[in-house]
């Protein structure tokens, strides 16, 4: 019954989205109809929320008459993972996607009070059209509520690797990020239809971009962290096609964030900001297509289904094709926007945009080139981590070197010499830190030390940015504190995000270059050294988990003879799917982690039972995850800026 209600609500949401398109389009000139369109947007979201609740209900109660539940759940699965199973499958994840899409539509209807009426109505119409496309796909091609005639007694479980708290919340975050860019897309199309783009429009684009980008950042970080501790060998980024699919909209979103600032504050680059707004969500849709079509091999891919892939490609082609055609038609008529000198903050932002766009393009080429070459009758090739390290990394290094200059330059016409003067301490300190790394970190690695210098350059640059704004060491202390209090949240946000990027660069360089590894067959009582640490294998016990059986080893981690932590890595066997997984034990010490996995049972040399133990010392690895979280925090802080919150009411007058 509840499942049927959910199915009904899904169709209802489609109907309401259709109504939203019609009413909002007609409402551009008639406020009454626009109001009805907003109501339809809210209704579509409400209906879909009910569908989603019904789907979760079916998963929680293990209703195996629903095909989706039978294929992706199991009665022995813990409650959290039964709930998360609702979005762990292809069908369920599309419902989540649509829920986010209609949710953002409703958010525009609710929070868009300050938007010019016609812009709001057009935005809702476009957002509704996107909703119609994806809902129609869900209803007709991937219905999550389809019933089975032969009801199985037991479900076919979810991959035990995916039974993990980080992964349970990873898709919702990721989807909110992906789909958050739909609002920006809709606002851009609406502005193109209306033929008007101004500072007020850019001011509206920014908060949505910030919110979507911050959520996407958190989603990607969670996914990376999951891979780090679940896959069992300490890797955190694989340049896997599905990771790339989420990374491309992130890069474009980051570019859009910056160009929207230029358009908002200076009225410059309106066409480019529009283009990025369209491109970012296009990459989101491309990601949705790549993950689901099965055209690429990936650990994360959903069940392969070419027909569905083709349909998603169709939606992508029509939505983006129409938007870019509109852009080609209307954009030349837009005013070119403000002027700026070669050395100015605008120029720096343009360089940022070029670098980020080229970086996204590089990821795109690396992801799609193997497909293209194969389709053109050539051999199948793989573009893996070594390819990206040689292309993506140098492109980004160019951008990172220039980054600290941006905030130091004035709008319109900057003072290169002045910026250099404000940054020379940061530069000297960064180079010094790099040289220090060459001297004291063993073994000596020049390139990685240069990477550290780059990280410190970004970090000191971010600090200098704040220092300059509050006139640190220039004004008396009370004045500095007063200025600190008066600094807009947007300034803090950008410095935090840049500092987060710096921490990530530091962590990534240090961890990659100086991690230590060992693998030994160990019997109880044996000890091995891993860098400054000593691992003693104490014992192995058997654990009877809720839906698995496990061997759990107990190891004592010592440093200088003193026990610092007890590690309990596990090797689990899930009888339902017949899979074996490793549960990693992590001892965090400051910024470093000692990472231990328990492998298969093997005889030692003297015939006693032993286990294959792998240990990793991952220095500064915590920065790899803390950095991006700090970036997301920067986004949130920036989002809370009074100027953005008040923008709505204050700007309606200036918008005309």
């Amino acid at each position, binding site marked *: 019954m509840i499942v049927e209600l959910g199915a009904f609500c899904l169709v209802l949401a489609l109907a309401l989205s259709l109504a939203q398109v019609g009413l909002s389009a007609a409402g551009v000139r008639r406020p009454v109809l626009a109001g009805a369109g907003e109501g339809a947007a809210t209704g579509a979201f409400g209906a879909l929320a009910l569908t989603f609740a019904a789907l979760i209900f079916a998963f929680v109660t293990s209703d195996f008459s629903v095909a989706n539940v039978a294929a992706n759940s199991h009665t022995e699965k813990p409650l959290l993972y039964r709930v998360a199973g609702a979005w762990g499958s292809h069908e369920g994840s599309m419902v989540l996607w649509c829920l986010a899409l209609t949710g953002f539509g409703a958010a525009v209807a609710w929070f868009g009070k300050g938007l010019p009426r016609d812009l709001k109505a057009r935005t809702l119409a476009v957002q509704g059209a996107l909703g119609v496309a994806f809902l129609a796909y869900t209803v007709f091609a991937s219905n999550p509520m389809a019933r089975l005639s032969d009801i199985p007694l037991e479900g076919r479980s979810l991959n035990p690797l995916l039974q993990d708290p980080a992964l349970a919340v990873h898709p919702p975050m990721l989807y909110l990020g992906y789909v958050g860019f739909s609002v920006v897309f809709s606002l851009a199309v609406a502005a193109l239809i209306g033929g008007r783009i101004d500072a007020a429009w850019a001011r509206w684009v920014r908060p949505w971009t910030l919110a979507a980008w911050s959520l996407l950042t958190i989603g990607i970080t969670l996914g990376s962290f999951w891979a780090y501790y679940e*896959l069992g*060998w300490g*890797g955190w980024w*694989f340049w*896997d096609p599905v990771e790339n699919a989420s990374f491309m909209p992130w890069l474009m979103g980051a570019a859009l964030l910056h160009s929207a600032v230029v358009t908002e*504050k200076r*009225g410059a680059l309106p066409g480019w900001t529009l283009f990025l707004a369209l491109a970012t969500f296009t990459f989101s849709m491309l990601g949705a297509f790549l993950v689901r079509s099965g055209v690429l091999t*990936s*650990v994360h*891919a959903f069940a392969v289904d070419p027909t569905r892939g083709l349909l998603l490609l169709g939606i992508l082609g029509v939505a983006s094709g129409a938007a870019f055609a509109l852009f080609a038609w209307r954009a030349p008529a837009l005013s070119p926007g*403000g*002027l*700026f*000198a*070669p050395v100015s903050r605008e120029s720096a932002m*343009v360089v940022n945009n*070029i670098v980020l766009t*080229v970086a996204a*393009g*590089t990821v795109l*080429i690396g992801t799609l*080139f193997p497909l293209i*070459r194969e389709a053109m009758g*050539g*051999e*199948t*090739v*793989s*573009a*893996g*981590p*070594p390819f990206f390290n040689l*292309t*993506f990394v140098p*492109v980004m290094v*160019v951008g990172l070197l220039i980054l600290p200059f941006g905030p130091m330059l004035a709008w*319109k*016409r900057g003072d290169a010499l002045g910026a250099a003067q404000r940054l020379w301490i940061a530069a000297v300190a960064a180079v010094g830190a790099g040289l*220090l790394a060459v001297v*004291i*970190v*063993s*073994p000596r690695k020049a390139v990685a030390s240069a990477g550290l210098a780059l990280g410190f350059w970004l970090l000191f640059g971010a600090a200098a940015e704040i220092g300059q704004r509050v006139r640190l060491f220039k004004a008396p202390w009370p004045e500095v504190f007063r200025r600190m209090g008066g600094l*807009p949240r947007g300034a803090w946000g950008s410095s935090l995000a840049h500092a987060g990027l710096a921490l990530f660069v530091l962590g990534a360089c240090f961890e990659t270059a*100086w991690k*230590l*590894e*060992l*693998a*030994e*067959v160990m019997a109880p009582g044996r000890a091995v*050294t891993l*860098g*400054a640490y000593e691992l003693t294998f104490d014992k192995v016990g058997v654990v009877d988990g809720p839906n698995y059986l496990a061997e759990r080893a107990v190891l004592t981690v010592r440093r200088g003879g003193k026990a610092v932590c007890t590690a309990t890595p596990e090797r689990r066997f899930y009888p339902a799917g017949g899979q074996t997984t490793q549960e990693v034990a992590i001892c965090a010490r*400051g910024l470093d982690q000692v990472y231990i996995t328990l492998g298969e049972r093997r005889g030692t040399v003297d015939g006693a039972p032993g286990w*294959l133990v792998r240990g*990793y*010392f991952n*220095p500064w690895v915590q920065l790899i995850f803390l950095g991006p979280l700090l970036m997301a925090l920067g986004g949130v802080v920036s989002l809370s800026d009074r100027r953005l919150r008040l923008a709505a009411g204050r700007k309606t007058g*200036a918008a005309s």
Partner: protein
Amino acid sequence: MKRLLLALMALFCIAAASDPAERLADPAQEARARNLFQEVRCLVCQNESIDDSTADLAHDLRQVVREQVSAGRSDQQIRDFLVARYGEFVLLKPPMTAANLPLWALPFVMLLIGGLLLALRLRRRPVAAPLSEDEEARLAQLTREGRD
């Protein structure tokens, strides 16, 4: 920093995390084999190098590479051998051949084009000219909007 020094001075063991049962006796050869592993795709896995994978095929491929390394063949000879046997798909770093040229060149070509476009735009409209009427209006508007 002293902690760091202590932690890192102690060892230099690149080849430690390979399975002790598989390891080559000569550490230099083992290190070379490990470097190669990271460039070789585990063909049956979704997207892993044979260095990371625990699949049986990865194990077999590691053995093949180790045998070749200990037989004294060069890195390039081993790569060629793998490509002849499994196709270019086996290499995670595609060879720089004419067919793969777009893959390797496009990122840098794009960067170059981006730079050129920026240079053109900046050249086309010198800012040094006195303010036009439009700009005066814009300046007035900006001052109204608030100075940020």
